[in-house]
C-alpha cells in the first residue's frame, strides 16, 4: 500500500482539478442541496431556550447554592463542627459557634450551633466536598435548586445564614409531608 492511499481519519478525499460540466457550473443543484439542509433544521428540536421566560430544569445531582437544612421539627441541623470548612479546598467557608441557651431548643438541634456561617461564593468551586464531609446532614448543594446570582460588589457574594438556611415555609412543608 502506498502512502498516498492511507487515510488515518478515513475522511481523506482525492482532490481533482477536473472541469465542471454544464449543470454543475450553474450551481442550481448545489444551491437546492444547501437549502434542503436549512429547511431540514427548521423542523428539528431547538437547542436553545428563551431564558428569562423559560428556565431549564435542574438535574437531580445539580450543585447550586448551598442550603443549611432544618430537621423535621424545623430546627437547624448545623452544629458548627467545622468539617465543611476543613474539607473545603477553596477555603470558602467560615463559621462561629455559639452555645444554645435554654429556651432555644426549638431553633437548634444540638447544644452548639453556628451563630455566623458564611460562604464566599467567589471562592466556592461547587465541588460538594462540604456536603460529603458534613456529619450532621446539614449542608446540601442539591436542595435549593437555585443558581448563585451574579452581583456587582464583592461583599454581595459573601452569603450569610440569612441566605443559606432553609426557609421556614419549606421546613413547614417538609414536616407536613412527613405527618
Amino acid at each position: 500500500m502506498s502512502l498516498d492511499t492511507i487515510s488515518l481519519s478515513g475522511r481523506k478525499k482525492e482532490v481533482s482539478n477536473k472541469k465542471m460540466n454544464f449543470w454543475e457550473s450553474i450551481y442550481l443543484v448545489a444551491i437546492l442541496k444547501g437549502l434542503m439542509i436549512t429547511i431540514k433544521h427548521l423542523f428539528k428540536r431547538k437547542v436553545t431556550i428563551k431564558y428569562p421566560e423559560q428556565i431549564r430544569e435542574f438535574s437531580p445531582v445539580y450543585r447550586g447554592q448551598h442550603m443549611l437544612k432544618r430537621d423535621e421539627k424545623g430546627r437547624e441541623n448545623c452544629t458548627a463542627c467545622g468539617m465543611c470548612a476543613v474539607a473545603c479546598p477553596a477555603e470558602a467557608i467560615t463559621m462561629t459557634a455559639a452555645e444554645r441557651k435554654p429556651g432555644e431548643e426549638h431553633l437548634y438541634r444540638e447544644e452548639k450551633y453556628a451563630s455566623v456561617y458564611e460562604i464566599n461564593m467567589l471562592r466556592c468551586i461547587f465541588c460538594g466536598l462540604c456536603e460529603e464531609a458534613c456529619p450532621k446532614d446539614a449542608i446540601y448543594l442539591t436542595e435549593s435548586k437555585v443558581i448563585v446570582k451574579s452581583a456587582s460588589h464583592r461583599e454581595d457574594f459573601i452569603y450569610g445564614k440569612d441566605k443559606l438556611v432553609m426557609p421556614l415555609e419549606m421546613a413547614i412543608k417538609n414536616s407536613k409531608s412527613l405527618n
Partner: protein
Amino acid sequence: MKVTIDGQSIEVEPGTTILQAARMIGGESVPPAMCYYSKLEKTGGKCRCCLVEVTKGSDANPTPMPKLVASCVTGVMDGMEVNSKNSTRVEEARKSVTEFLLINHPLDCPVCDQAGECDLQNLSFEHGKSETRYIEEKRTFEPENIGPYIQLHMNRCILCQRCVAVADQLTDKRVHGVMDRGDHANISTCISKAIDNEMSGNMIDVCPVGALTDKTFRFKSRVWFSKPYNAHRDCDKCCGKTTVWMFGNEIQRVTGRKDEFHEVEEFICNTCRFEKKEVNDWTIEGPRKFEKYSVINRNKYAVHPPKVEINTEAQILLGREQDRKKISMTNVPLENTENSKQ
C-alpha cells in the same frame, strides 16, 4: 535486660514496663493507652487498650503467657518476646475494647471541643467499627457545674481516672473522685463543690476524651482552626512552658506541651492556663509541630518548600557578550560611547 517487641529488640533497665519499652522503640508497635500516663504515678491497668501478647515469658522460663497482658503495668523480663501490632489476637482484643469504650460514649464529636486531639477518636479511627451492635439506650448523667474554669461532660467519660491521679498528686486537697459503682460510676465532686486548686487545670490536658474541657475555650473554635505556638512566661507557680493556640492575634487557649503520646511534658498552673490570654503575657518561641497526619496540620501551610537555586554562569540565559553583539541590530549603536558621539 533485652526485650523484643514486634521483632525489634531493645536493651532496657529492670523495672521498665512493656509499654515504656515499646515507646522507646517507637513506631507502629506502640500500644495505644487511654488510662496510663507516664507523668503520673499509679495510673494504668484500667482501660485495657494496651493489651499485648507475650509469646515468650523470659529466657529463664520461655513459656508464653496464656492471656493477653496489659502492657502498661507488666514489667519486662530478660529475653521477653512481645507481639503487639503483629498479633491478630491483640488486634481483635483492641477492637473489642474499643467497642466496649464506645458503648456509652455519646459520639458527639461535632459538638465536642476535644475533637481533633482526642485519644478515643484516634483509637476508634484505628480499631473501631463503623456500626454499633448496642441496641440499649446509652447511659446519661445530669450535667454538673464544677467551677468557672473546667467543664465536665460526664457522658463522654471513659473512667480512666487520670484526673483523679492529677488531683491526688499535684494538688493538696482532692475534691473530686469516682462516685457510685458499676454502671453508675461517675466522676464527680461530693455535693457539687467547685474545683479551684491552682494545678487543677491539668485535668483538662490529662483527660483522653472530652469529658473535662476548658470552659474559657468552650465552643470558641475547633482545634484545627487555631495555630499552636510554643510559648513561655515567668511563672512562680509552674515552669511556664506552654503551647498557646492562636487565631490571628488572639490567644484562644493555653495548654501544656504535649508530646507524641499526647502526654504533657510539664504541668502548668491555672494562672497560665486560664488568665493569661494576652499576647503580651507570653514570649512566643515558634510554631509547635504535630504528627504528620494530625488534623491540626490541616490548612496550616507550615511547610515551606526549599528554595531552588540553580548555580550557573552569570548571564547564561542572556548568552555570551560577543554573540549578543553579533546578533543585535546593527543600526542601533551598542556602545554608550557611540551613543554620546551622535
